[in-house]
């Protein structure tokens, strides 16, 4: 990888609020022209990280480089990055045009140049006919696009988006996702997107960084993070998973051999750092199959059925009282065990992964 391909280089960033550590030793390299997502539960530090890049939070330790230049000590108005705020923060006393023009004028552009650029950007977000409206006269979706236009107008090197879709309703949110991706492709600007919504992260991003408790948990593509989570937290946070207690008896070549609660021996891929001893096996509910007890890895009794519409969850309580959830399609042909019925559970080696804590 070439140095200049890195748009934002975050190295060993720590942020303290008094004695509280909001970010602990975070290192990340965000590539040029990438749609990069910071994902995590609320309060995990993802917004703090975004705000350190924007310049609204100073960092306690570490460095932030933008295309090679250290920007950690620059105030926000000296950083060539722009932000789309969570509640948009459109200036309520200015119309759409003046909002979008604001940054251009502050950069010293003359009015004609700025106006031309405003026209361009409003066209990009399809708001040309709303140029004279006040923010309060726009719908939530339109406000969101004004915020995007305002942040894109100065042609920032990196665009920061702080949960920009969270204020929209579900239908609109799905439409805007596609639009955002498209705009990112058209402009070629690096997007750093913060969200707590895993579905949003999985569908939009080139790469995702999962953050919890101020620490970076895993960085990778949507598929990597979903299918090869590096630890228990990631497996649990992204989608749903069963975590089965196992005893690891051997680890070699990235594979682990372990004993299941039923006593059966099972070999599957293991996360980095897996060791002998107690461990957790992660299996997604949709990758578990119910069979006859005789030919299965695990056995238990169906203890609960949860209706989800297109699918159903069947909870199976194993002999050691652990509960494994199985996702089955909700159709006439699927056999759904009744409560108390003894069932066997099977899964492929490729569907399971041994995790570290």
């Amino acid at each position, binding site marked *: 990888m070439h140095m200049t391909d890195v748009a934002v280089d975050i190295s060993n960033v720590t942020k303290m*609020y*008094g004695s*509280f550590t909001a970010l602990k030793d975070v290192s990340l390299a965000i590539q040029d022209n990438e749609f990069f997502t910071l994902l995590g539960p609320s309060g995990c530090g993802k917004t703090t990280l975004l*705000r350190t890049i924007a310049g*609204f*939070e*100073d960092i306690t330790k570490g460095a932030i480089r933008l295309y090679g230049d250290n920007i950690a000590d620059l105030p926000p108005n000296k950083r060539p990055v722009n932000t789309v705020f969570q509640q948009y923060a459109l200036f309520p006393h200015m119309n759409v045009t003046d909002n979008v023009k604001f940054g251009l004028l502050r950069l010293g552009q003359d009015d004609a140049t700025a106006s031309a650029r405003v026209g361009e950007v409003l066209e990009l977000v399809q708001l040309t006919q709303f140029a004279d409206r006040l923010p309060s006269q726009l719908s939530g979706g339109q406000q969101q696009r004004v915020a995007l236009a305002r942040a894109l107008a100065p042609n920032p090197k990196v665009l920061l988006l702080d949960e920009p879709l969270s204020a929209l309703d579900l239908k609109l949110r799905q439409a805007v996702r596609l639009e955002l991706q498209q705009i990112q492709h058209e402009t070629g600007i690096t997007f750093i997107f913060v969200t707590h919504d895993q579905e949003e992260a999985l569908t939009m991003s080139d790469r995702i960084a999962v953050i919890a408790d101020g620490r970076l948990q895993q960085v990778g593509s949507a598929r990597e993070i979903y299918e090869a989570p590096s630890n228990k937290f990631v497996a649990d946070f992204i989608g749903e998973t069963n975590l089965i207690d196992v005893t690891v008896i051997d680890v070699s070549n990235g594979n682990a051999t372990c004993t299941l609660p039923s006593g059966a021996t099972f070999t599957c891929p293991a996360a980095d750092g897996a060791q002998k001893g107690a461990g957790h096996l992660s299996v997604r509910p949709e990758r578990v199959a119910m069979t006859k007890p005789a030919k299965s890895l695990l056995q238990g009794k169906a203890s609960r059925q949860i209706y989800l519409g297109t699918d159903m969850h069947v909870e199976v309580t194993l002999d050691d009282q652990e509960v494994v959830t199985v996702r089955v399609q909700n159709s006439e042909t699927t056999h759904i065990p009744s409560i108390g019925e003894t069932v066997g559970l099977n899964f492929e080696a490729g569907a399971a992964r041994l995790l570290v804590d």
Partner: protein
Amino acid sequence: MAGALTTSKASNNSTYAGLGNLLMLPSWLVIGFFLVLPVGMMLIYSFLTKEFRGGIIWEFSLAAYDQFFFDRGLFGDDPARIEWTYIKIFWRSIWQAGVATFFCLLIGFPTAWFIATRTGNSRSIWLFLITIPYWVNLLIRTISMKFLIRDTGPLNEFLISTGIISDPIHIINTNFAVQLGLFYSYLPFMVLPIYASVERYNFALSEAAADLYASRITTLRQIILPTVKPGIIAGCILVFVPSLGAFLAPDLLGGAKTFMIGSLIEEQFKGNAGNWPFGAAVSMILLSMVLIVLTYYARQQSKSGER
């Protein structure tokens, strides 16, 4: 905990961080120079010696405070006895202010409660109606009261013409007139803070209490009063403190018998007494009393903040 966290967040990265003292400079200059410093000088003044025919001599003296507390006879050489004249004036002021405060609370609490339990527009209109008289010139309000309660004023005329009384009730120049004046002057001060605390009160708590078999009186005593207590205390202080040092009500509505601290002080500077160090000393004593009340209030506030 979470709250503390967000405030520290905001404060570390505020828009005008580092400019705090610069922005406060004008306030410091104006209030520091024209209030803090003058009060300091007043303190010094209260320890100076008075000269005959007004004026002062720059010589340290406890005479002003001595005059307040002790009576040493006409020539100042009798053994010191406690001087009751000024203590009585203070005591009367406290009593008058206390009575006014009590009646303000009696009327103000139900009013504040009633307004706070209105909804939307009607609430702000009620509130507005209560605030307007406060903004009307205090002097004019006191004059109005004086006009109303004169022996030959509209109140007596009305009562006589309706036959309720045959001779005018003598109100003006009594303690009651002063109490009425103080009550009338500062009633809005009682309503507003109580209103604010009732408005903040979560009525789901009352419902929960009623659900748990509490009677209305129990609910009022155990649930509502503790929550609105800070508002009541604030209201009482806002009425009591200005009443204590009031000048207009005792001067215009009262007479010689209703002399209060404000008139005593005024007399030292504007009137015939002309004893500036003594006036400064009386002012210092008044200020100290007010500060004691306010400190007590601040303590209460921080205590309820901890809860």
